[in-house]
């Protein structure tokens, strides 16, 4: 008999700890290698951790909601004599102390080596592969940290990539995750139900409070006549490519926004508070506020400025789907430079969106409805949608904010201009 101590793996760059979301095993359980044992959450994404070995669970560390430092013991397994995987180097129970000293610095200790092979996110240190394979992986959307290398020194070789690409479909089906963050508390026979604020909900709560506390929001609401935009949208939907979904206002607004930001670089900014620097981005990475069963997530349409309308629409649809099914990775949920929020039919007439810090602007779409409007002396029916936006008033003056929204309004009211390059003023 020997024990195997599994430590909290490094789940991605810069992660120092991870929060326990839900245990899928308890002391005394027998588990088999690769069986899902625990869900944890970093500041970016939920990660499912499979069992690195087969054995009986002796002890677990941390209750849902607790944060566990990377490198500290998470689970102790007892391996039976016929434990598989000779290569998994179980720690002899006689001398566990030396080799399992937690050492929060957590270099990849020998004991975590098998985790690298079995737990996708548990791979520590750097990915070893050629530049060409890195490019292939990026183009194919394959996460190299999730692949075990079969080449010299554990290097990922091309055949590993091909293998990963072909098995991706099954894998992604297998990792479809149950909703996290809904741990029921002590639902005793009282009339209240306690819901622990953990996981994504806690993260949302912290982010919102921080943004609202630190950022003096400047809110600005303007109405936009989207009659022509609606006509264009209807036309495009009738003639849309076969594989494209039906078009909402959102991709059109994102397209218009990327054009407008060319003239308003001060709105496509990340504020680096530590350095006291505003980092202007030429690329427009648009965060799309997305409601999911777990709560609000903001997946990111990268480099929206270089995408076409159908590409933007497809990307929004893809990201929303991945966010809702909990498949969106860290890299899909981070890195936006400006955010758009739309509640669709629930859009109301005005809202006061909270800025997605460290960004400095958020654009909100309200509901588009037909309204009587006075036009050249007579009352006509026009489709009107309000834009409710917030700006970080420390860095964006009200004048610029208003001018930016007016520019956006102009594009949206004359939809052809969305597709005409910006004439840069001197």
């Amino acid at each position, binding site marked *: 008999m020997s024990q195997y101590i599994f430590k909290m793996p490094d789940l991605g760059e810069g992660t120092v700890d991870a929060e326990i979301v839900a245990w899928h095993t308890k002391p005394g359980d027998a588990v088999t290698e690769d069986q899902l044992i625990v869900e944890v959450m970093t500041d970016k994404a939920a990660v499912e951790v499979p069992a690195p070995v087969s054995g009986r669970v002796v002890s677990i560390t941390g209750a849902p909601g607790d944060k566990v430092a990377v490198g500290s013991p998470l689970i102790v397994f007892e391996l039976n004599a016929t434990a598989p995987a000779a290569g998994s180097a179980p720690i002899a129970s006689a001398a566990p102390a030396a080799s399992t000293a937690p050492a929060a610095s957590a270099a990849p200790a020998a004991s975590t080596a098998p985790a690298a092979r079995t737990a996708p996110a548990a791979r520590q240190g750097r990915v070893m*592969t*050629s*530049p*060409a*394979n*890195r*490019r292939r992986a990026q183009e194919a959307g394959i996460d190299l940290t999730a692949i075990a290398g079969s*080449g*010299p020194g554990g*290097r990922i*070789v*091309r*055949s590993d990539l091909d293998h990963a690409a072909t098995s991706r479909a099954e894998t992604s089906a297998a990792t479809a995750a149950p909703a996290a963050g809904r741990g029921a508390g002590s639902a005793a026979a009282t009339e209240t139900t306690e819901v622990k604020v953990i996981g994504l909900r806690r993260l949302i709560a912290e982010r919102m409070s921080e943004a609202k506390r630190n950022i003096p929001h400047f809110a600005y609401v303007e109405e936009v006549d989207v009659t022509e935009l609606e006509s264009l949208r209807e036309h495009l939907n009738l003639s849309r490519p076969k594989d494209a979904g039906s078009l909402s206002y959102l991709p059109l607004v994102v397209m218009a926004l990327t054009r407008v930001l060319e003239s308003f670089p001060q709105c496509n900014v990340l504020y680096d508070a530590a350095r006291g620097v505003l980092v202007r981005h030429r690329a427009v990475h648009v965060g799309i506020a997305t409601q999911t069963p777990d709560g609000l997530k903001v997946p990111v349409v990268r480099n929206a400025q270089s995408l076409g309308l159908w590409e933007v629409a497809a990307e929004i649809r893809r990201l929303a789907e991945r966010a809702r099914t909990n498949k969106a990775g860290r890299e899909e949920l981070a890195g936006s430079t400006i955010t758009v929020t739309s509640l669709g039919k629930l859009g109301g007439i005005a809202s006061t969106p909270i800025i997605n810090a460290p960004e400095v602007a958020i654009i909100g779409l309200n509901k588009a409805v037909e309204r009587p409007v006075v036009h050249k002396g007579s009352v006509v029916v026009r489709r009107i949608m309000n834009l409710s936006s917030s700006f970080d008033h420390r860095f964006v003056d009200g004048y610029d904010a208003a001018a930016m929204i007016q520019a956006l309004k102009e594009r949206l009211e004359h939809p052809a201009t969305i597709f005409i390059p910006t004439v840069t003023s001197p």
Partner: protein
Amino acid sequence: MANMNMIQALNSAMDIMLGRDPAVVLMGEDIGYFGGVFRATEGLQRKYGEHRVLDTPIAEGGIVATAIGMSINGLRPVAEIQFADYIYPGFDQICSELARIRYRSAGDFFAPVTIRTPCGGGIRGGQTHSQSPEGIFTHVSGLKVVMPSNPFDAKGLLITSIEDDDPVVFFEPKRLYNGPFDGDPTKPAVPWSAHPKGQVDEGYYKVPLGKADIVRRGSDVTIITYGTMVFVAAAAAAAANVDAEIIDLRSLVPLDVDAICTSVKKTGRCVVCHEATRFSGFGAEILSIVQEECFWDLEAPIQRVTGWDTPYPHAFEWEYFPGQARVGRALKSVLEPA
């Protein structure tokens, strides 16, 4: 077309240029009456006279300096430095004067000087007759640096160099003067008459500078080389049964970056071969360019096959010379699964 070895091809180039352009003069140690230690100028003084083909004192600084003065005043000198190993006394003149005349005079003057010099090893010449200093000259802004690997290219490149209005240092891999050499000294020598590149047009023609020659098309790996190593690399790839694309640079400055990058992007693997020493060698420059331009296409670390970082030895020449075995090892390494 005629069979020529590289000496005859170079001789033909100079003969043609002396005949075409009265401004062309040849100068160097023992190149006139004697016809040059490698016979490259044989018969030319007899044909064109002592005022066109000049014997000079044994003073490389003086040879280059005189050529510079002549060139600024309208002549088009072709100076021979008897061995590249002896070029260093002329280095200050080449580096500080020749390379900068056009720059220093804001374009009022220019120096159409060609410096021919035999280089490279494989001839049991020891440390005074075997060096490959081309990389030193590629580091000097204002110089063009050329090294042919066969008679046909040698003639065309030399004519282009002589007609070039700026200075060219023209390295002649002396092991290739009489025939191609695959790096195996135990094999009988092969004459150029048995090689297609030994078929040389007897008339005037040019081979452009800055245009590499793709000696062999292949898909497994790109071998970038020049001079003697072209044949060594080809033999090593054939022996290893590797489908290599072999690029003979022909001119190092200007460099055919397009040919290099197109090929490396295709194969994803790259080996650079030269006889010269490794550290700060010209291969390092190629590696940098490949890294900068082709990084995301690379399947494996780029390999270099070069001479060792020692003086060219008197003994153990074939341990020093980067022969087929070393090229083969580099190919094996770069072709590891990636």
